[in-house]
């Protein structure tokens, strides 16, 4: 299974602070990404807003609680709720994270890294199969940002992701900021990471800001996309070509215009990087 690279353009995360503007009109974004669990409730304002937005622009559902790497069985309650919201919204793509976050029925509500071992690989691949069969569609998994590694890991994160997508058919949501953050925290070369990711498996990019905590970078999503992440985005465009992008902003969320401006900047950079190559191809 290859990943269908949809021509979505450049979007932003749908956040409560901007609901009123989305209800009042159609903000200038190509598409939006919604955090799946925030829209699983059958009623109330959030799902009404999402249905209104869905009628106007493509929506991608992006989960945070699937816990694809947990050894716990995936709860039926979660799968049923995921299936229901996917059926209701008919999203362009469905994504979650390469992580774990539930243990013996308890959720820690965090995206914890996995040891990159053969055991983890077989486990996650079989769970991706389970979810994809249940949904009847491809799942995309996002590379996490991480602050700690495991002694038992026998392969790099990019090797793990590349093999996982080969075995399970899942797509990759490549979070450019997470590559930068994890590269800094673990001391690997982010360019090597990009080179290790199969080009035809990447469905979309995430772009976001992070915070410098001295000894480490924190994936905080609390300000604009920093220069280093824009630089890595350029490198990713060179490697992967035209890929939809999504700007995430989750803390200290600014007015909508400011988030949209980040998305327009992603579009401008894409044009700047890819237009010369596309002109050469056309001639």
């Amino acid at each position, binding site marked *: 299974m290859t990943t269908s690279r949809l021509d979505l353009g450049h979007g932003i995360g749908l956040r409560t602070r901007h609901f009123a503007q989305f209800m009042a009109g159609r903000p200038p974004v190509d598409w939006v990404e919604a955090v799946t669990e925030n829209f699983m*409730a059958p009623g109330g304002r959030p799902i009404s807003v999402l249905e209104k937005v869905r009628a106007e622009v493509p929506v991608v559902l992006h989960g945070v609680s699937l816990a694809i790497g947990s050894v716990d069985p995936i709860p039926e309650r979660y799968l049923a709720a995921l299936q229901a919201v996917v059926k209701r919204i008919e999203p362009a793509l469905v994504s979650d994270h390469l992580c774990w976050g539930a243990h013996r029925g308890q959720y820690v509500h965090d995206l914890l890294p996995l040891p990159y071992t053969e055991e983890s690989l077989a486990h996650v691949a079989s769970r991706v199969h389970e979810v994809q069969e249940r949904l009847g569609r491809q799942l995309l998994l996002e590379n996490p940002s991480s602050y700690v590694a495991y002694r038992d890991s026998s392969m790099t994160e990019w090797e793990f992701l590349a093999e996982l997508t080969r075995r399970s058919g899942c797509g990759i949501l490549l979070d450019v900021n997470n590559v930068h953050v994890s590269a800094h925290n673990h001391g690997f070369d982010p360019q090597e990471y990009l080179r290790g990711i199969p080009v035809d498996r990447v469905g979309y990019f995430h772009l976001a800001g992070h915070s410098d905590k001295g000894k480490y970078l924190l994936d905080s999503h609390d300000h604009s996309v920093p220069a280093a992440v824009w630089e890595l985005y350029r490198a990713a465009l060179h490697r992967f070509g035209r890929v939809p992008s999504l700007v995430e902003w989750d803390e200290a969320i600014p007015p909508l215009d400011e988030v949209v401006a980040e998305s327009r900047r992603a579009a401008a950079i894409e044009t700047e990087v890819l237009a010369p190559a596309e002109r050469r191809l056309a001639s």
Partner: protein
Amino acid sequence: MTLAETQALFHEILTSAEPVAAERIEACFAGTPDHPASERVAIYANMYLWRLVDALRETFPQLVRYLGDERFAALAEDYLRRNPSDHHDVGQVGRRLAAFLREHPDPERPDLADLAELEWARHQVFFAPPAEPVGPDAFAGLDPASFSRTGLVLSPALRVLVLDHAAAPLWRSLEDGEPPDAPSPGASAVAVWRGGFDVFHTPLALDEAIALEGAASGDSLATICAAFTGREDPAAAAHAALGSWLAEGWITAVAQPRDVLAALDRRVARR
């Protein structure tokens, strides 16, 4: 270590009140000389509580106002140690907070459990399924004989609470930034509901709360109205109550009791 053993250790590091021995951490996790593994896993451990306390803050804003940030955080940490999240939606993590406060009451404010129950109900109805209320003439044409055969389907976005203290005035004082009155013990009922996307609550007389609870469990209109027999004019009281339920949009169907029960079954199955 197996994947299961690794996850058990990481989970223990995040959730245990006691620190995990450094040797166990160093045996599993890799660090660097300037940033050892124990400091790295502590990043996750600190975020674990912060994230859940933050979710509780959003659900219980008046409790936060009353206690202040520091006392609320201490309460939340105590609660979370005994009641870790068992739902994929982090917004559900507070559903046992009122019960926790009943088991561990604040000696000066035993009514905080009731305030928490009210805030939790407000949170629940915000996300409840939508349902179209019946019109104002829903009871037109019902003759007295039909009363014994007819029941009500209430809005899924309505909760009736019977509390140990008057929580609504406490909520109002906190909302308005006024100093709250002393706790007011005694049974007190509140209706909480959503209208459009807004959440409301209002105090109820106890007999009206009993009538609503009966309606919610499939009682006929005759039984519902019998709840008002203690009033000076029971028929007028029942009429006024039914009229206000209609006006607030709390009734979504007027139906045979068996249809009411079928609607309740469907609602339970959806949960």
